[in-house]
């Protein structure tokens, strides 16, 4: 298992939060006065991952070159933690020719073959694809693994259950990650899911299932490490459910009236200040370091946004390219 490096985990979470905060700001900046989802430099749906950084950082800390991730509609934290180039990703979100997908994909459809990263706007549909990537890794004789990520709402899709069975019966090097942020858009987990823990479902497919109850990067790091090591050693798939937090709306523009009083306490459940406080208490983080880490992250994000904004807008006729290879 990878050695725990608390400062690295913290730094990566701050980097992602800085990214999501700036995208939030930029996304809303030019949608005034009449809020129009299709307007502005970043149009379309926007699903931000603030609050869920521990899941991505805790899992991706164990990944190496050649490992794959399939992420869902809320993909930024896993993309960044897995090493997807921030500039190219940002340019894609801005719909520019320099983007990962030359403006074709947008924020829900980021493809980075170099890092074996992809995401899909259709929930749970990354699970079967991860199985296929794991099949390829196994057949090629590598010790790489594939990580499939979905939300707790996706665990009620057929693709989820079919994939678990397939991976188990074929002993594939896959780790299935469920980010349980309590809400499938407006539907609370209690209204959608018959079991208290999706980890319990793993038994039905003959694989280990673990639920990490706290949105704590170290606990996630430990549990993910065990699952990833197991897959790497050829011992088969695992299911890891992480109880995390959707700090903001399902998508930007979501008023979240359905969350009621639960919404009042989200800020105090924010995992990043909590982790910073822990590291300070342990004497592993100073106030100066906190500031320099934040400044470093801000500079990187600023540069990525500047790169995106300065990049060319695709020509309309380029829409006709890339249907076939």
């Amino acid at each position, binding site marked *: 298992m990878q050695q725990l490096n608390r400062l690295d985990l913290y730094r990566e979470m701050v980097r992602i939060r800085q990214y999501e905060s700036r995208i939030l700001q930029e996304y809303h900046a030019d949608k005034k006065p009449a809020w129009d989802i299709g307007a502005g430099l970043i149009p379309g749906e926007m699903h931000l991952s603030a609050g869920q950084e521990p899941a991505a950082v805790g899992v991706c800390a164990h990944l190496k070159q050649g490992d794959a991730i399939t992420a869902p509609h809320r993909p930024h934290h896993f993309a960044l933690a897995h090493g997807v180039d921030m500039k190219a990703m940002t340019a894609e979100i801005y*719909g520019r020719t320099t983007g990962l997908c030359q403006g074709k994909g947008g924020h829900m459809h980021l493809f980075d073959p170099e890092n074996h990263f992809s995401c899909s706007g259709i929930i749970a549909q990354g699970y079967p694809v991860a199985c296929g990537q794991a099949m390829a890794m196994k057949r090629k004789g590598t010790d790489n693994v594939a990580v499939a990520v979905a939300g707790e709402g*996706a665990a009620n899709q057929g693709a989820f259950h079919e994939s678990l069975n397939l991976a188990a019966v074929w002993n594939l090097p896959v780790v299935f990650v469920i980010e349980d942020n309590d809400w499938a858009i407006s539907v609370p987990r209690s209204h959608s899911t018959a079991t208290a823990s999706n980890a319990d479902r793993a038994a039905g497919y003959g694989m280990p299932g673990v639920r990490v109850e706290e949105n704590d990067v170290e606990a996630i790091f430990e549990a993910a490490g065990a699952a990833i090591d197991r897959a790497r050693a050829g011992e088969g798939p695992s299911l890891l459910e992480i109880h995390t937090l959707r700090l903001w709306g399902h998508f930007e523009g979501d008023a979240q009236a359905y969350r009621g009083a639960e919404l009042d306490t989200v800020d105090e459940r924010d995992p990043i200040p909590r982790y910073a406080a822990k590291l300070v208490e342990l004497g592993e983080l100073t106030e100066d370091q906190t500031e320099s880490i934040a400044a470093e992250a801000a500079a990187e994000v600023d540069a990525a946004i500047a790169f995106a904004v300065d990049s060319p807008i695709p020509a309309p006729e380029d829409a*006709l390219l890339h249907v076939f290879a």
Partner: protein
Amino acid sequence: MTATETPTRRITTAKAMAEAIGLEMRRDPNVFVMGEDVGAYGGIFGSTTDLFAEFGADRVIDTPISETAFIGAGIGAAVEGMRPVVELMFIDFYGVCMDQITNHMAKIHYESGGAVTVPMVLMAATGAGYSDAAQHSQCLWGTFAHLPGIKVVVPSNPYDAKGLMAAAIRDDNPVLYLFHKGAQGLVWMEKNPRSIAAVPEEAFTVPIGEAAVAREGTDVTIVTLSLSVQHSLDVAEQLAADGISVEVVDLRSLVPLDRDTVLESVAKTGRLLVVDEDYKSFGLTGEIAAIVAETDPTMLTKPLMRLAVPDVPIPYARTLEYGILPTREKIATAVENLMS
């Protein structure tokens, strides 16, 4: 205003849909609604606004994200005599539940030799224009209209949205009700003023299978549907100033298709433009062209034109997306070409 006149309120297409469902729920206890976020949220695109407050969780049911299960459950409830209105959030999500839709909902009546009916409504959001990219922007009505056994309705305005919803709920067949996000009148999306219009408060139906001549004209016929009707009406108004008289036929239903209204209009104008936001090949535009060709190609004084999404997925970036959508500008250019 005289004492006998009743002011007609103006409502959005989304509100008109929800109102129709609510009226049917009041008159028929067998009607209920289910889907993702249809409860307190009121439907992501407003199609079930306020229904939860009136009818509660027993008749307006939030589902797990399990489309095969809840659309299949709609079928099961329908064969037992209920009249479910089931929402598939985006039509693009059909991939995860297509077997229930096409092998069950669409075929049970036929397979059973007419012994079993499936009186359900499956409603879903369609359409592009706000950079939601390849998996959340399709129309796909041509795909479903191609498959026998499903009625397909596609309203373009609040009045038809209400009347077609009531007709769909009362119909003894499965009806796929496809509403365009850009025609819902949502506050958070750019909209044509035609998405808010006068609609009677009382229940009424618009017959399924009847097209409407949305605007009469004599030079060119535009046959179209859904949001493209709104665009075409805008273009018709604009071109009238140039002396071009455009007739706009709003198909409203694809199955059954009102061939007579299409043919009457083309016979009158002799020029035909078919506008469709769905993919071009093997779709609606080809179907309309075939109907004219089969009936009497000599009624065309010029070769017909088709304006549809070229056969590519819907791209994300705005320039790319509007590069392939049937915009007002492209519609106007096509009409001008037909007139030249």
